[in-house]
C-alpha cells in the first residue's frame, strides 16, 4: 500500500468517526480508550471505601501551601547556595594549594621558556579552573536532589505565575537555576520546554545567570575593592544578572519572539527519597562537561595566552610590547566611557571569551603576580577605584558567553544566526550597562 493510500484511508476513517460522534477524532479515540480502561478497572480493581491522604499529598499541603509555598521556595534556594558555597571552601583551598605547590615545582624545569610554559601557562591556567570543580559539583548535587525528590516540578508550579508574567514559562525556571552552576547545562535543560518561543527566549537570556566560572572574577575583585561589603556586592551581581535576564526575556517576548506562551499542563509527581546513586549519576552527567572543558578548551586557551604573551620572541613576558599587549591596546579605547580603558583589561576580557575564569588568570599572567595580590596591583598600577572595578565586574557578568556556552546554543538552536545574535546582543548590553554604572557612579563618587 502506498503512503497516499494510507493517508486516504486515514482521512476516510476520521471523517466517518466525526460523522457518527460529531466530535474531534482525537477526542473520540481518547474517550473510547479511557472508557475501555475504566470499564475494565470496575471489574478487576477494588478501591478502599475512603480514600486516605497519601504522604505525598500531606507534604504538598505544606510545600505548595498558599502562605508557606514562597517562603519554603526561597528558603530552599538559600539552603542550596549555603550548601554549595560553604561546603566548597576547604576543598577549593586544598586544590589551590596543590596547584601552587605543583607550579613551584615545575618552574625549575629548564630551559626557562619551557618551565614558564608549564608553570605559568598550563599548571597556573588549568589549576585556576579546577579550583571551581567543588562548588560546581556541589551545585549539581543540590539540583539533582531537588529534581529526584520531586520538588523541581513544585518549584515550576510555584514560580509559573511570575515566569509567565515576564513572558517565560514555569519550566524556564529550572534552566535558569542550572545556569548559576554553568550556563551549558542550563542551555541544554531548555529542552524540557515544549513551546519553541519559550525555549529560545530562555536560552537567549540564560548566559546572564552568574555561572560558577565568573565567580573567581567577582571573588577576587570584591575582596580587593569592597572588603567591607563582600556579601552584598556579590549578591547584587546575582540580582543584576537575574534582572537583566528578566528584562531581556520580556523584551524578546514582545518583539522578536512575539506569540502565545506554551501551556502548563504538567504532572506533579509523588515525592520520593532521592537515592545516592541517582544523585551522584546526575551530578557526574552534568559536571563532567566542566572537566572536559578544563582539559581541552581551557588548556588550549592558556597555551594561546602564554604564546601571545611571549611573542614576538624575546619580548618581556606579557608586557605592552607583546602581541597580547598590541591586541589589548587596539580594543582599549572602546572601554573609555566604562572606566577601564587599559590594555590589560581588554586583553583579559578577550581571553574571557574562551572561558570566563581565564579573565583573572590572564591578568595574573600579565602582571606576573599571584592571584592573591592581583587586587592590589590593579589599584596601584592601573589606578583602579572601586567604581572602575564595579564597572568591570558588570561587564564581565554580562558580556559574550564563553565559547563553550555559545557552542551549546548553536547545537540546541541549530542556528548560527541565533548564536551570533546572542554573542552580539549580550556584549552590547554589557557595554551599555558598564558605561551606565561608571558614568552614573562618577556623579556620586
Amino acid at each position, binding site marked *: 500500500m502506498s503512503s497516499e493510500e494510507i493517508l486516504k484511508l486515514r482521512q476516510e476513517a476520521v471523517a466517518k468517526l466525526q460523522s457518527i460522534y460529531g466530535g474531534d477524532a*482525537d477526542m473520540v479515540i*481518547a*474517550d473510547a480508550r*479511557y472508557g475501555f480502561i475504566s470499564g475494565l478497572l470496575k471489574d478487576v480493581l477494588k478501591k478502599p471505601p475512603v480514600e486516605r491522604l497519601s504522604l505525598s499529598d500531606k507534604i504538598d499541603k505544606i510545600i*505548595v501551601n498558599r502562605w508557606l*509555598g*514562597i517562603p519554603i521556595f526561597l528558603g530552599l534556594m538559600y539552603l542550596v547556595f549555603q550548601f554549595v558555597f560553604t561546603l566548597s571552601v576547604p576543598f577549593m583551598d586544598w586544590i589551590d594549594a596543590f596547584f601552587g605547590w605543583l607550579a613551584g615545582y615545575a618552574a625549575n624545569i629548564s630551559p626557562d621558556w619551557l618551565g614558564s610554559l608549564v608553570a605559568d601557562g598550563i599548571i597556573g591556567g588549568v589549576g585556576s579552573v579546577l579550583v571551581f570543580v567543588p562548588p560546581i559539583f556541589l551545585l549539581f548535587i543540590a539540583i539533582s536532589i531537588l529534581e529526584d525528590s520531586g520538588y523541581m516540578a513544585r518549584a515550576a508550579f510555584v514560580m509559573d505565575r511570575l515566569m509567565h508574567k515576564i513572558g517565560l514559562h514555569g519550566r524556564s525556571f529550572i534552566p535558569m537555576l542550572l545556569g548559576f552552576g554553568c550556563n551549558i547545562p542550563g542551555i541544554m535543560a531548555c529542552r524540557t520546554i515544549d513551546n519553541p518561543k519559550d525555549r529560545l527566549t530562555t536560552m537567549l537570556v540564560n548566559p546572564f545567570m552568574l555561572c560558577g566560572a565568573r565567580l573567581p572574577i567577582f571573588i577576587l575583585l570584591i575582596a580587593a575593592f569592597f572588603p567591607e561589603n563582600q556579601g552584598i556586592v556579590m549578591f547584587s551581581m546575582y540580582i543584576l544578572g537575574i534582572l537583566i535576564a528578566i528584562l531581556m526575556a520580556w523584551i524578546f517576548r514582545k518583539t522578536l519572539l512575539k506569540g502565545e506562551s506554551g501551556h502548563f499542563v*504538567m*504532572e506533579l509527581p509523588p515525592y520520593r527519597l532521592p537515592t545516592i546513586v541517582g544523585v551522584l549519576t546526575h551530578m557526574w552527567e552534568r559536571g563532567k562537561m566542566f572537566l572536559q572543558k578544563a582539559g581541552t578548551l581551557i588548556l588550549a586557551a592558556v597555551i594561546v595566552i602564554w604564546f601571545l604573551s611571549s611573542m614576538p620572541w624575546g619580548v618581556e613576558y606579557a608586557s605592552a610590547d607583546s602581541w597580547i599587549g598590541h591586541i589589548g591596546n587596539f580594543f582599549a579605547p572602546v572601554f573609555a566611557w566604562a572606566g577601564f580603558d587599559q590594555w590589560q583589561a581588554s586583553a583579559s576580557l578577550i581571553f574571557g571569551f574562551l572561558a570566563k575564569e581565564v579573565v583573572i588568570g590572564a591578568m595574573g599572567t600579565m602582571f606576573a603576580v599571584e592571584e592573591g595580590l592581583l587586587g592590589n596591583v590593579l589599584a596601584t598600577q592601573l589606578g583602579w577605584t572601586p567604581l572602575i572595578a564595579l564597572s568591570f565586574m558588570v561587564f564581565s557578568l554580562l558580556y559574550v558567553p564563553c565559547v563553550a556556552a555559545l557552542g551549546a546554543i548553536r547545537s540546541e538552536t541549530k542556528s548560527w544566526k541565533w548564536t551570533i545574535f546572542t554573542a552580539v546582543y549580550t556584549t552590547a548590553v554589557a557595554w551599555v550597562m558598564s558605561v551606565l554604572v561608571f558614568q552614573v557612579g562618577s556623579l556620586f563618587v
Partner: protein
Amino acid sequence: MAEKQLNELKKGEKGKIVRITGNSSVFRRLLDLGVVKGSEIEMKGVAPLGDPIEIKIKGYNLSLRKSEAAGIIVEVQ
C-alpha cells in the same frame, strides 16, 4: 447539578468532566494525560501566587493554568 469551569472549583470540590473546549495544543496534551469526558476530577488547590492550579485525576496530581482549566467544563458533585 451545576456545571462549572474547572478553574472555578473550590479547594476539595469534586466533579466529573462534561466537555473540554479550548485551543488544540493544550487539548491534545490533556487528552494524552487522561483528562477526558467522564473523568472524575478533584480540585487540590492553587499555587501560592494564585495560578496555576493543582488537580487530582485518575489517581495522580496534575497542574495547569487557570486559563487552561477554563476550557474544562465540570459537573460538580
